[in-house]
């Protein structure tokens, strides 16, 4: 209780300890917009109460619905925003995004779930809902989210509990339910093999019937924020536990500082930094201060700028003392393999309290001290300022302005208990995320996994390995759990965006490696991808090329057709209607187009009466036989769809995304 009060006081002090009486008004005479506490003031208490209601927590004092500001007959985000604005006496730079629609839903899913696997109907349902309600269904930390990722016929939910470890166990064992019958395939998922975490996560991230958001965040937590690296000697099974422990803490709805403490105490982190050798013996410290520094910098985003000398000589050095006595050791496989979880000894721990961040940190062992330290670290002004910015910068926006950063800090600081989930939900339906100047450069993971998930129609495709994704990631030199920058995280969007080599790879995958896209089946399962199962036909049950092209663009680009010009249409119509490129299609149909290598510019295609435009319109108005009863005809039609996808995947619009 005392701690809660202190935290609220801290927020009050940090933000602005002012209430606001509207001019000429009386504190008790009327209910003001956002005054959900009915105390006659619109102040920070109302911000907190509104967010408590929004997050599903029991409010700490009564809430009154007549303070509703957006006529939705409920207290929530809009009231919190209003209260914040009043408290700040100025606009706080964000609001709930009011033009919530299908494109907004798809953008949220692209960024935070690599698209997920919702049906089109589900996307429409979310678009039709109040964004505050929709986001609570879209982004959850349950290991399963049936709306975001409906179960497939393999019913994974019956075999796994959603953790990486359970997935690795299921896919690696000799169970009759295991869809992998080949011993080598099963070996890929062995949690004690170096390739095990990678294969298992790629399965988790793509499989239907799990939770794409959960695993997208799990990847971010372990490959960017609390990064651990096989290349630095972090063993496979401890890596999986690192991932699962963090995500289970999220699933338990623990405050973010407790999630980070759990991450910090994982064996994987001890192997990564080597503080499993830090000991306090006979009054002498033996070890290194590597993680002592990065605990503050990378986990809590505290760079020590508040007092450089103090941070270096006191906070970091004493954190190194707090980390003494962690035991996690390597053992050969015939002795059980490396320790999967760390244990915490008092014997070689610096048991005496230590001063860190100007606070006294107590604890009989490293676990107790780090957990106590986390409670202090999360409230440090530098963490409060930097952590929310880092989260958004690495997940969703490479173009954060000072105004957007200020607004993000508001959202973060107004949360009485820090919750990554609530923060992301709030951000994802805000004008900040749906801002026209938001730019997210796609990492190789962002691009490949989003496109792959949009292409994936059934889990059997994963089991048959129809479109193996590992080769694509290898080509870009990025593999999960081997972050390019070690503890500083994996490939950034900016790096990928600025890399001609990444562009070259992706371009060549759509041309030289066309088979990656064109393959519809593989192996002897009898499965073949059928696009008619998800692409809506017209009222006559037919698939008109221009409708299919438009549908594909939104599915694979999710920009509300903002960048879907006559040029993109022309190329897609040609590919979908004939399987040929635009140049060849016009060469074949127009006597005035002798050379298939002719470049057609937008102006060539914009005049509806120009011969080339007429032929493009004809192509768009033709039909593609996706539901033909003839298997060969159907297969050809599906291959044309795949060529169209390959084309879209090589356009500039899949290398980055914008807000609205």
């Amino acid at each position, binding site marked *: 209780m005392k701690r809660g009060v202190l935290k609220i006081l801290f927020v009050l002090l940090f933000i602005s300890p002012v209430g606001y009486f509207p001019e000429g008004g009386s504190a008790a005479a009327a209910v003001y917009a956002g005054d959900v506490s009915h105390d006659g003031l619109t102040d920070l208490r109302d911000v907190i109460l509104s967010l408590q209601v929004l997050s599903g927590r029991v409010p700490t004092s009564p809430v009154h619905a007549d303070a509703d500001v957006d006529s939705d007959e409920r207290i929530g985000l809009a009231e919190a925003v209003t209260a914040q604005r009043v408290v700040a006496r100025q606009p706080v730079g964000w609001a709930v995004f009011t033009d919530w629609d299908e494109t907004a839903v798809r953008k949220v899913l692209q960024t935070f779930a690599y698209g997920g696997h919702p049906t089109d109907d589900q996307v429409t349902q979310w678009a039709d809902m109040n964004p505050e309600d929709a986001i609570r269904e879209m982004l959850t930390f349950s290991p399963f989210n049936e709306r975001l990722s409906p179960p497939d016929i393999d019913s994974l939910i019956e075999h796994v509990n959603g953790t990486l470890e359970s997935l690795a166990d299921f896919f690696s064992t000799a169970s009759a339910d295991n869809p992998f019958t080949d011993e080598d395939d099963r070996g890929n998922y062995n949690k004690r093999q170096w390739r095990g975490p990678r294969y298992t996560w790629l399965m988790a991230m793509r499989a239907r019937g799990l939770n794409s958001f959960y695993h997208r965040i799990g990847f971010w937590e372990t490959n960017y924020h609390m990064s651990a690296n096989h290349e630095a000697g972090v063993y496979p099974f401890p890596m999986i536990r690192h991932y699962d422990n963090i995500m289970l803490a999220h699933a338990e709805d623990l405050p973010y500082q407790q999630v980070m403490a759990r991450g910090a105490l994982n064996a994987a982190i001890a192997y990564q930094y080597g503080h499993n*050798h830090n000991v306090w013996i006979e009054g002498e410290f033996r070890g*290194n201060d590597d993680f002592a520094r990065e605990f503050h910098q990378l986990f809590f985003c505290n760079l020590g700028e508040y007092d450089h000398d103090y941070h270096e000589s006191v906070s970091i050095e004493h954190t190194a003392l707090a980390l003494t006595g962690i035991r996690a050791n390597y053992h050969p496989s015939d002795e059980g393999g490396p320790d999967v979880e760390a244990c915490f000894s008092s014997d070689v721990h610096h048991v005496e309290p230590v001063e860190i961040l100007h606070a006294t940190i107590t604890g009989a062992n490293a676990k107790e001290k780090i957990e106590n330290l986390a409670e202090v670290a999360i409230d440090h002004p530098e963490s409060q300022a930097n952590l929310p910015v880092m989260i958004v910068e690495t997940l969703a926006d490479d173009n954060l302005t000072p105004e957007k950063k200020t607004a993000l800090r508001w959202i973060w600081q107004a949360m009485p208990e820090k919750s990554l989930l609530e923060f992301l939900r709030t951000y994802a339906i805000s004008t900040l995320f749906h801002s026209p100047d938001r730019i997210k450069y796609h990492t190789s993971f962002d691009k490949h996994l989003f496109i792959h998930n949009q292409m994936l129609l059934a889990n059997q495709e994963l089991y048959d390995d129809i479109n193996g994704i590992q080769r694509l990631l290898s080509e870009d030199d990025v593999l999960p759990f081997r972050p390019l920058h070690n503890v500083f995280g994996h490939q950034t969007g900016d*790096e990928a965006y600025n890399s001609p080599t990444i562009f070259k790879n992706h*371009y060549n995958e759509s*041309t030289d490696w066309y088979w990656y896209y064109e393959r519809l089946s593989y192996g002897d399962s009898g499965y073949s991808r059928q696009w008619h199962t998800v692409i809506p036909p017209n009222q006559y049950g037919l698939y008109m090329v221009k409708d299919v092209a438009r549908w594909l663009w939104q599915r694979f680009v999710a920009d509300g057709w903002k960048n879907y010009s006559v040029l993109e249409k022309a190329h897609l119509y040609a590919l979908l209607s004939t399987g040929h490129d635009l140049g*060849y299609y016009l060469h074949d149909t127009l006597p005035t187009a002798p050379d298939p290598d002719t470049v*057609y510019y937008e102006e060539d295609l914009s005049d509806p009466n120009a011969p080339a435009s007429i032929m493009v319109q004809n192509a768009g108005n033709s039909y593609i036989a996706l539901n033909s009863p003839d298997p060969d005809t159907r297969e050809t039609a599906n291959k044309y769809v795949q060529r169209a996808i390959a084309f879209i995947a090589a356009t500039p619009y899949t290398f980055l995304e914008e807000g609205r």
Partner: protein
Amino acid sequence: MKRITRRAFLRYSALAGLSLAGSQFPVKIHAAPDSDTILVIIMLAGGPDMRYLIVPPYESSSGTYGNAFWTARARTYGISPDNAEALAAKWEEYHHLESSGTIFGIHARCGWLRDQFVAGNVAIISNVFISRNRDHAHSRLRLEQGDMDAATSDQGRSGWGGRLAKICGKNICSLTSSVRQVCYGPHPTNPADHDNSNVIDAKDTRNMGLYEYDSDYPDGNSWRWNTRGIMSRALTSYYAAKARSLSTDSPYYRIIQHEQSVRSFGRQVNARLDSVPVPEAIEALYTSDSGNQLDSSGFAYQVRNIYDVLACEDILETNILSADYDGWDNHRYMQENIEPHLEDILGTNKGLDVLHAQLNANQPGKAERLVFLLYGEFGRQLAANGDHGTDHGEGNYCLLIGSRINGGIYGEMFPTSEIPRFSQPGEDIEGKTSYERVFARLCDAIKSGSSDSVIPGWQETELEPGVDLSGLIS
């Protein structure tokens, strides 16, 4: 405070001027540069402990520098601090050298560096620093931007290598797995942003181009039906048209630039390298079972890339190359981690030695034009930690290697003021000379008068008393 304000002003003015001089595409030579020197920047990411590479003589008498140094650092070699005999023996393993009265050792596995120093081709610049904090990311940002005042939020700005190439009217070649910030060129209008139109990605010189379908494919009319041909024609045509219609202000335009530069340079480089075999000695560096495979295949490929880029110098029109070698953050087990790294780069018949030899054999005149800059974002602490490594520090040595370098030691290599500090936890090498000073001298040597534009305000940064860097390169 006054200094920063003035520097900030100088910086903004100079960078704005440089930006406005920029062009949108990989440049063609407009004017001959002052020098034909080719600078190879090798980033040793992680904060290399150069005090493992360069050491003072061991001394048995307490209170001396040699004694304090070796005692404090004994555990990096797995030696007990009180084992004088072992420490003395360790010193004996080093190559012993002398310069202007300073006796020092270069690590035994760095024979090529020793030879180059003896030949007068190595400048060791002491006590250099870029940042007073010990934060990898922030220090790296400052180092690659060449700006000691860069804040963590200044991520998008240009790099000093990119600016130097731009002012020379040249391109910068990135040889690394991802393009480092040092390569980023100045933005045409916004000093807070960058423009990579003069960056050539030469990560894999033997596979640089976009796939282009060969219409002379032997299978008759297959170009009509072959899916590679269909997709290749579609995208070639699409990008040619898109380049015309898409605004150059669009964030998507960068992708158009990539398409243009990769297609243009890839085609020419591939054609050239078809007739330039990789020398066996270079190939051996990244070939398993060759008997001379480097510990880091990534660096070995970069050595090959340097060789190839120089073979295509007329096509690529470059005078700055960006390479890197990762893995220098040795908090633990220094000896087993750092020695293979050092040898890979500086050992006899290893990376740079092989490159030099093969250039001399196959591309006469190229090796003598090369200047290698080896640096990292910060140094380490004076004493070993309890984990056989060293923790983050401030100052460090950096190396400049090349026949145009006026070799020697710049700055006090072993400051006696460190003696009492060796026994204090957390103490590090005091940074006395800013990296901006070093970069500025390199800039002027490559393009006369360029330093104030590329590194604005550099003359107001720290320089160790008594040190003169003006004659660093002839």
